[in-house]
Every structure is written in C-alpha cells, then in structure tokens.
C-alpha cells in the first residue's frame, strides 16, 4: 500500500515538535492581528466616558463608597458565621444515626441548593408584609444575615460533611477507646481535623457569599443599608453612566482576589503536607 509517507526519498516530513511549533506561531499571529484590529477600531474616548468618567469616579468615591463597602463585608461575614453554625449542625444531622435528623437535613440541603438564592431574598423581602408585626432583629442586617445564611448553610453543610468523612475512622476509634463519649470525640477530635481539611473550600464559599451579598438589593433597603452593587447601580441609574458600577466591580475584586490567593496558597500547603 502506498501512502504519502511511504516514500523516504520525497520531501522530509516535519517532526511533531516542529509542527507544534509552527502551529503556535500561527496562533500568536492571529491573536496579534485581532488585538491590533480591536484597538484601532475602538472608540476610545467613548469607552472612557462610559466606563471611566472622571467626575463620576469622584462622585462614586465620595458619596458613600466606604459605607457600601463596609455593608458588603458586614453582610457577608454575618451570613458566613450564621451559615457556618447552621451548616455544621446540618452536616452532623446528615451523618447522624437517627433517621429523622438525616431526613430533615437532607430535605433542607436539597431544598435550598435547588432554589435560586434570589427567590429566597424576594420571600424575605415580603415576610414583614405577610406576617404583620414580624420584626427581625438587627434590621436590616438580621434579615440579610438570615436570608444569605440560610442559603449558604445548605452549601456549607455538604462541604463540612465531606470534611468530617475525610477524617480517618481510626481517629474516632482512638478517641472512643480513651473513654470519650461520642459528642466529646466529635468536638475535640473530628471537627478540628475536618475544619482543617475544608478551610480552602470554605473560603471559596466565603467568596461566593461576597458575590451573593449583591442580591440583597431585592430587599428594598434604605440608602444607609446599600451595599456595593445597589450603591453603584443607584448612581449609575441617575447618571446613565456605567462608571459607578465599574468601581463597585473593582471593590468586589479587592475582596475576592486576595481570598482566592489565600485559598491557592492553602491548597498548595495541604498538597505538600500529604
């Protein structure tokens, strides 16, 4: 059978390495051309006036950005703490030998993981109207913490459960063989190790919560309670300009990027320890 490669005397074929090299050069060339076209065709002055307008930057920074920034952090941290406590309880219930505990926890987790977070927020916004005279403490913070925490707890419970199950069975046996009751063994031996294992994924949950805190705009807060998204959007709407949202976006990155860096470092350290 004669194929193209059969005749050794014909023009020598490129080696796989050379071929890969040429392909890469071709890709770089295309990328360079696209970039140059985009830059030359863009209307820079318009882009600047829509996304980075000087006076809008000034207005956004001075009108109450620190307060909005603070609110985002307070909403997130409160919800994280609430979610962590509730999530730990749910995880323990899910692993319990008592059937009803398991069913309750599973139902809760599946319910809140399957629901869009925004639906929960809309419901919470309507609660005080539906139940006349209902007062949630620390308003508006309490409402946000509970709404955001309820959803976060469902996700965190699964992470924590995985962490608990990653602790070797011998650890519980050693604790029990020393006479520790189940509860003590869980609190002193299992949970500390589980949380060490799941610190990176839990930090990821925290990052998700930072972003989800933007959903509280649906609750209809007073200006004092605005967080970054609501604050940026309010100014953007009144001025028909995107600059305030860009700044709000930068603020989120200011929080989330360092956190992701911390996660990456922790994961690298855990890998080394293993």
């Amino acid at each position: 059978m004669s194929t193209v490669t059969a005749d050794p005397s014909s023009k020598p074929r490129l080696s796989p390495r050379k071929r890969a090299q040429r392909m890469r050069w071709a890709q770089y060339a295309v990328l360079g051309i696209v970039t140059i076209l985009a830059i030359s065709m863009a209307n820079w002055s318009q882009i600047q006036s829509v996304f980075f307008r000087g006076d809008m930057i000034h207005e956004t920074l001075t009108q109450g950005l620190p307060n909005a920034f603070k609110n985002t952090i307070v909403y997130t941290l409160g919800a994280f703490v609430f979610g962590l406590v509730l999530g730990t309880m749910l995880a323990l219930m899910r692993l319990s030998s008592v059937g009803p505990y398991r069913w309750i926890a599973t139902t809760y987790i599946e319910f809140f993981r399957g629901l869009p977070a925004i639906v929960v927020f809309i419901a919470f916004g309507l609660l005080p109207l539906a139940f006349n005279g209902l007062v949630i403490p620390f308003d508006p913070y309490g409402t946000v913490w509970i709404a955001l925490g309820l959803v976060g707890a469902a996700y965190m419970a699964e992470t924590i459960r995985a962490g608990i199950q990653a602790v070797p069975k011998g650890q519980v046996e050693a604790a029990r063989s020393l006479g520790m009751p189940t509860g003590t063994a869980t609190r002193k031996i299992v949970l500390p190790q589980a949380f060490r294992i799941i610190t990176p994924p839990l930090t990821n949950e925290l990052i998700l919560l930072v972003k989800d805190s933007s959903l509280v705009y649906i609750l209809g807060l007073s200006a004092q309670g605005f967080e970054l998204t609501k604050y940026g959007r309010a100014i953007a709407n009144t001025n028909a300009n995107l600059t305030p949202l860009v700044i709000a976006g930068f603020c989120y990155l200011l929080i989330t990027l360092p956190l992701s860096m911390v996660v990456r470092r922790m994961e690298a350290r855990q890998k080394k320890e293993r």
Partner: protein
Amino acid sequence: MATHQVSREVVITVDDLKKAFGQNEVLKGITTSIHRGEVVCVIGPSGSGKSTFLRCLNLLEQPTSGKVVVDGVEVTDPDCDIDKVRADMGMVFQQFNLFPHLSVLDNCTIAQVTVRKSNKAEAEKRARSNLERVGLLDKEAAFPGQLSGGQQQRVAIARALSMEPKLMLFDEPTSALDPELVGDVLSVMRKLASEGMTMFVVTHEMAFARDVADRVIFMDGGYIVEEGHPDEVIGNPQHQRTRAFLDRVLNPTSVGQIGGEDEAYAERHQSEPEADGDGDISTLSPGQPGQIGRST
C-alpha cells in the same frame, strides 16, 4: 492453663463470644479469661479473627452474641456505661491513630482532661512521666506528623498509659512499622509487662510472644485452636494447624512449603475445630526453643 506469677484474679471473662459481619461469621464462639498481671499474646493467620476478638473486648466491635465481662462489669450488657470501662482499658492501634492536630503532650492529656476531669497541671505531669517511660519526653512539643512510626507508636502507648488503665490492649502494634523501628516499641512493651501490667496483645512477633507472654492463644477460622504457655504452643504445638502456621511464619523461605500452605489452608477451612484446645496441652513437656527462628 499454664500461668506463672500471675494473680488468680480474673480481669476479663469471655464466654461464647460470636461476631458476624453480615453473612461472614468471624468469631464462632470464643471462651477464655485473662488474669490480673497476665500477658496474653494472640497469634494466628490473617483473617482468623484475632483483631476482631480484641476489638470486641472494648466494644469497638459490637459482638453478635456471647458475654464479655471486664472487671466485674458486663460490657455486652446494653445498659453498660462503656465509656467508663474504656477509660480503664488502654488501647494501642496498628496505625497508631494519634491525633494529628494536637501536640504529643496534648495527645496524652486530652482524655485525662475531658474524661477524667483532671486539672491541666496534673494531667501534664502524668503525661510527662509516661512520655519519659517510653523515652520520648524531649518530643512533648512535637506534632505526630514530625515523628517516625516507632516514635508515634510509643507516644500512643504513653497516651493510653496516661489514663492509668487497669489493662492494655495492643492490636498488632508493630505491624505498620519499618523493621528497624520494631525493637523500640517491643522493648517498651517488655518493660510494661515486667512492671506487671495486664496485657492482651495481638501480634505477629513470635519472639516477643515466646519471651514475654504468660500465655499464647492460637486462633484460626474464628476459634481458639490452642492456648497455653508459649513453650507449649509455640515450642511444641499439638495441632496440625498451629504447626502449619508456625512453620510458615518461622521458616518463610523454606523449600517445600508451597504445597503445604495450600493444604493447611484447605484443612483450616474444612474441618470443625476441636471442642477444647487447652485440656491436652497441660500434660505436655515444654518444647525446644532451638526450633524457633526469627520471623523477620
């Protein structure tokens, strides 16, 4: 039953102990007792139920039927406060199972503080004296991950001793160790035995069993096949299955064993065990130690 310089006081009584995992019956009726100050070594092929037997004594495995009485308390009674019994019963695991998030000292104090309700200073004093006993006082600030396997196992022994247990259970304490680290752990156990600790040891270390044990139990297929003084059980075994096992362990490289192993295995899984394994042993003369080689 041949025991020497051992009190007649019974610490553990085991009566017709059975344990099944689903369809798989691992213990088929174990009856024996352990006296105060006695060192009992359990030997036998893997899968013979020795570890399960040991774990039934402190209820890490729940027996299917039968009775285990420790120090007058029936642990197989559903109303028994098992935590209280376990606190007086030290256990050492094959995989050490030290708490990796706690320092060596805290490993030795945590149960004292949480279970015994000792105050911190007292607990640390006791922990240090036990760490000294195992020769690791200088490692009290280290974490388990920084120690060698042999050191970890000695810390595990110190951790168990810090509860001042009335007896100690050892579940293959040297099986997970590199050969050169086995000696340190065994010498700690020898010292413990010479101090009069009641010890129940599941082991593959024939030399240890021969030198230290007051009584050796040979288990196979979920039964006690033979038990008695080590000179008898190891030096001059009466049962074919004991002989075949010891032969394999003591001369692992000897030629002509390849067929023998299969035969012994087949026999072990066909025949029913003899009703009582120790009655005929007591009349026998001690065996010749010259027969025994090192297992490793």
